[in-house]
């Protein structure tokens, strides 16, 4: 086996050039996932009647299906659905005119929301009941209790898990090459199509992913330290 370092560097350059696409695909679903995921977690925690049940069903389904299948299913549903509607209303626009990156974002978003809402629900449950009771007893409204007392304690507790959620999404973004989005990994692979040096391209992509995720991990550790000033130091 001979490994072409020079070609790996070329593939890596190409991968780095498309890193912004991967970052977009990871961070947009992540940020929106935190916002919507927090809402879903609250809805489920407080047993909001119909909505809570509905969200539970959605999460159970999403958690049980491989990400790649979700991407493919959403791709076909969106493409065929759009074309049906376009035909019905005689639009000149067709699915092939739409950037597939939106399909990828939608698919990754549905995955991210399910995982993140579970993370946040766990963190909310970890906040002691007494904290809710004390906050209610001084006359706070539901909103004030959540905003001032519960979420400021739950979110820092959720941070390590959120970090691994983000890393999970980041790794899942590599699957979008299945619907021909050109991201970090696809860009590296395309350079290899001419000379079949796939191993070099894969290793190049792997290194870039590893650096990205390592950076996220590092930032998460710094944030964790900052947010937990009120916790006891010492044992850990």
């Amino acid at each position, binding site marked *: 086996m001979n490994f072409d370092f020079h070609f790996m560097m070329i593939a890596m350059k190409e991968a780095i050039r498309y890193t912004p696409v991967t970052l977009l695909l990871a961070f947009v679903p992540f940020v929106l996932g935190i916002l919507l995921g927090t809402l879903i977690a609250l809805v489920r925690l407080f047993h909001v009647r119909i909505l809570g049940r509905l969200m539970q069903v959605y999460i159970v389904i999403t958690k049980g299906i491989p990400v790649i299948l979700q991407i493919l299913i959403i791709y076909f549903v969106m493409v065929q659905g759009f074309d049906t509607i376009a035909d019905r209303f005689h639009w000149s626009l067709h699915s092939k005119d739409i950037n597939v990156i939106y399909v990828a974002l939608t698919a990754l978003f549905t995955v991210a929301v399910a995982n993140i809402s579970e993370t946040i629900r766990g963190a909310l449950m970890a906040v002691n009941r007494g904290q809710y009771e*004390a*906050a209610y*007893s001084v*006359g706070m409204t539901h909103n004030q209790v959540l905003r001032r007392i519960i979420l400021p304690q739950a979110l820092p507790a959720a941070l390590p898990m959120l970090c691994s959620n983000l890393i999970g999404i980041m790794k899942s973004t590599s699957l979008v090459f299945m619907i021909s989005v050109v991201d970090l990994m696809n860009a590296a692979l395309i350079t290899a199509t001419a000379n079949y040096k796939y191993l070099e391209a894969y290793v190049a992509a792997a290194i870039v992913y590893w650096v990205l995720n390592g950076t996220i991990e590092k930032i998460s550790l710094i944030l964790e330290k900052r947010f937990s*000033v009120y916790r006891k130091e010492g044992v850990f």
Partner: protein
Amino acid sequence: MIELKGVYKAFGRHPVLKGIGLKVAKGEVVVVIGPSGSGKTTLLRCINFLEKADEGELTIGQNHYHFKHASKKDILSVRRQTAMVFQSYNLFNNKTALDNVTESLIITRGVAKNEAEAIGRRLLDKVGLTDKYDAYPCRLSGGQQQRVGIARALALNPEVILFDEPTSALDPELVGEVLAVIKKVAREGITMIVVTHELAFAADVANHVVFMDGGIIVEEGTPQQLFFHPKAERTQQFLKRILPEWNYDI
């Protein structure tokens, strides 16, 4: 003045409070005693709607409330006229001692921040925590945390402060400092309902003692009456089991 009438509460099929009536005059200190599981704590928690009683009425000053039909607004209004000191302190973990005291003033009463902080410092001084303004709860001992809890309750200037076994989670050495603070507050004429197992303390500060068992008030009266001339057999039984421990102090 606080008045409770016909308070009934069941957890599932198990009744915990079977029609409680209680009257507390302004500035009075009422101590509720009784064995574990007699419904003392539940009664206290029903007063500020941490538990929702099934039946009964509550009067605070001029305002009347029905437990069964209380709206969200009613509940909030009751909670803003009462304050609670918890057995397990329940200080806000993400806030410093001073912020714990000022938080509700700023958020629920709309007091300006610097004004609230002045009040907060004054109250922390009063409970003897002058050097702990900026300490987080995890840095305070149990006794110190409970004193912050009392300051937090005082800050709201409530119609009544509800003490739910305020010293039960403390080790014996720290009980004294907390009881001393409660005594000091009681002398200032703040209306209090105290659930406690500290009978010597009850005899010392209470104007009125209530003995509860099995979800009803068995007997009530002045400390003198209740402790030294109990009428009901159940009260005599209960006191006999506990009295020898503190008989010498009186």
